[in-house]
């Protein structure tokens, strides 16, 4: 194992013997499209840089990669029994993945069994793996430059990653050094996990299985963490169940929204009977010339009161295209009873109707039950992106109608150019609201994600744990 003396020696620059310090280098990353700063070890005397592909780098940055070395489940000297085999933890190595600038470490705990066989426990990202030496029936690492042949399975060499030793503790069966590289291949064959570790002068093959923290706590009688482990598992299970409740709520809300969204019933005969009161009457307002048409559709039957209705308008371009012009309208829903009160038996007389609609805005008591104003437009122009052509040729609005009965649809249509009154279509449908289901769905999703995350991350233990 490494000693303090060796570390001091290797902290010197290999070129001039000068001291090494932490430094950094900034360069422009083409992929990230921004300046990136990466750590480097630097000689204070000759200025030579040592990047993460050198052993010197790990000597200088070891403290940044081992500050949490005591936040582990295993400890040196632990004794326990798994599958009736007794083990004692005798040594430990911590590796850092070479390609990562941030801390990305795993701990390899070396155990020796009662009959003198070495065994390895790996702690990484809250998971524990138990590895034992494995002698393959056949392995060929050299004849193919791009792959390793392992008992007939091809393992691509491009899947390799390099680990660098950053911490050495205890008694180990060989003499590792800080910064020493080891090329690793992790793969699965016939459902079993294997790891090939290739260092400068040896290759070791191990097969492993995943264990949970509960098994290790029990096997090694680690009572210190038992209570916190049980509490963590209980809380995670609870968060998991809560997330299921919220997921069910989200599903219900979504289904309710879908059901409501597609539950529409069209009111028949809205455009069945039509009286064109005026057509393209020219007028001028504030220096703008325009044309006005008035149309009365109906009566048609709205069979249910206290219900939500949607009225939609559109330009019918089969009748007349809307081309680089505007058209606006004022729609009124008028109860037949209200119109009959004013027109009496002359409800079909255009002259009487014209008189009524002439005064419609001056009546102290409104004639209409509801009013909607909107416009359609078609425009083109040029901006910094070049030519554009946009249009809006439809409009929709929801309202709650309190009384069922017969209704008229009255429309005043204003346009820049003379336009056919038939070029505007109206459709009224009985609909169901769904906005609150969508809001509640979003709340459920947020609650689900929070609880799902806590069901994996809640932890009272001083080390990472991935157990569920």
């Amino acid at each position, binding site marked *: 194992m490494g000693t303090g003396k060796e570390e001091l020696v290797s902290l010197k620059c290999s070129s001039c013997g000068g001291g090494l310090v932490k430094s950094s280098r900034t360069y422009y990353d083409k992929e990230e499209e921004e300046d990136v700063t990466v750590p480097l070890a630097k000689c204070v005397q000759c200025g030579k840089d040592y990047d993460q592909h050198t052993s010197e780098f790990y000597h200088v940055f070891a403290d940044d990669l081992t500050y949490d070395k005591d936040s582990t489940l295993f400890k040196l000297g632990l004794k326990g029994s798994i599958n009736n085999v007794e083990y004692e933890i005798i040594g430990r190595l911590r590796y850092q993945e070479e390609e990562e600038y941030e801390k990305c470490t795993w701990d390899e705990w070396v155990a020796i069994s009662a009959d003198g066989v070495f065994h390895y426990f790996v702690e990484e990202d809250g998971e524990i793996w138990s590895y034992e030496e494995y002698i393959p029936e056949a392995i060929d690492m050299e004849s193919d430059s791009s792959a390793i042949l392992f008992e007939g399975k091809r393992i691509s060499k491009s899947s390799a990653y390099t680990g660098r030793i950053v911490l050495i503790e205890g008694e180990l069966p060989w003499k590792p050094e800080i910064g020493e590289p080891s090329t690793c291949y992790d793969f699965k064959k016939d459902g079993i996990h294997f790891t090939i570790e290739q260092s400068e002068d040896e290759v070791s093959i191990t097969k492993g299985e995943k264990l949970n923290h509960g098994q290790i706590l029990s096997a090694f009688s680690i009572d210190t963490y038992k209570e916190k482990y049980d509490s963590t598992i209980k809380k995670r299970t609870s968060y998991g169940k809560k997330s299921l*409740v919220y997921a069910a709520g989200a599903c219900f*809300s979504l289904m309710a929204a879908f059901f409501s969204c597609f539950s529409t019933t069209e009111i028949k005969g809205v455009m069945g009977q039509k009286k064109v009161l005026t057509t393209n009457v020219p007028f001028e*307002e504030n220096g703008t010339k*325009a044309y006005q048409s008035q149309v009365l559709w109906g009566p048609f039957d709205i069979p249910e009161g206290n219900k939500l209705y949607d009225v939609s308008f559109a330009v019918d371009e089969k009748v007349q295209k809307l081309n680089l012009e*505007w058209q606006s309208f004022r729609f009124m829903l008028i109860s037949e009873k209200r119109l009959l009160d004013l027109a009496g038996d002359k409800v079909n007389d255009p002259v009487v109707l014209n008189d009524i609609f002439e005064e419609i805005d001056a009546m102290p008591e409104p004639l209409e039950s509801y009013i909607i104003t909107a416009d359609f437009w078609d425009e*083109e122009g040029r901006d910094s992106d070049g030519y554009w052509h*946009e249009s*809006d040729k439809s409009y929709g609005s929801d309202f709650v109608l309190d009384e069922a009965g017969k209704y008229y649809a009255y429309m005043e249509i*204003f346009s820049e150019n003379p336009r056919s009154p038939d070029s505007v279509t109206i459709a009224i449908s009985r609909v169901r609201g769904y906005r609150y289901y969508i809001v509640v769905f979003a709340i459920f999703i947020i609650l689900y994600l929070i609880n799902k995350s806590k069901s994996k991350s809640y932890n009272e233990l001083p080390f990472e744990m991935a157990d569920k």
Partner: protein
Amino acid sequence: MIRSIIIAAALISSSILMTSSYIGYSGAGKEYFKKVREERKSLRAGSGYYAPYMGGSGSFRSGK
């Protein structure tokens, strides 16, 4: 767990209640009459409140 069931039930109930009560939607009929009657009472003659609607260009780009 029980708290999450209560929260879920409350959220679902409130969404059903608000949907079935049509909260937040415009009202046609009596509600509209009341609103317009009040508005017209407060308007002076000739204020032009109900001038013919000429929306014209609805585009924010205001091209032509």
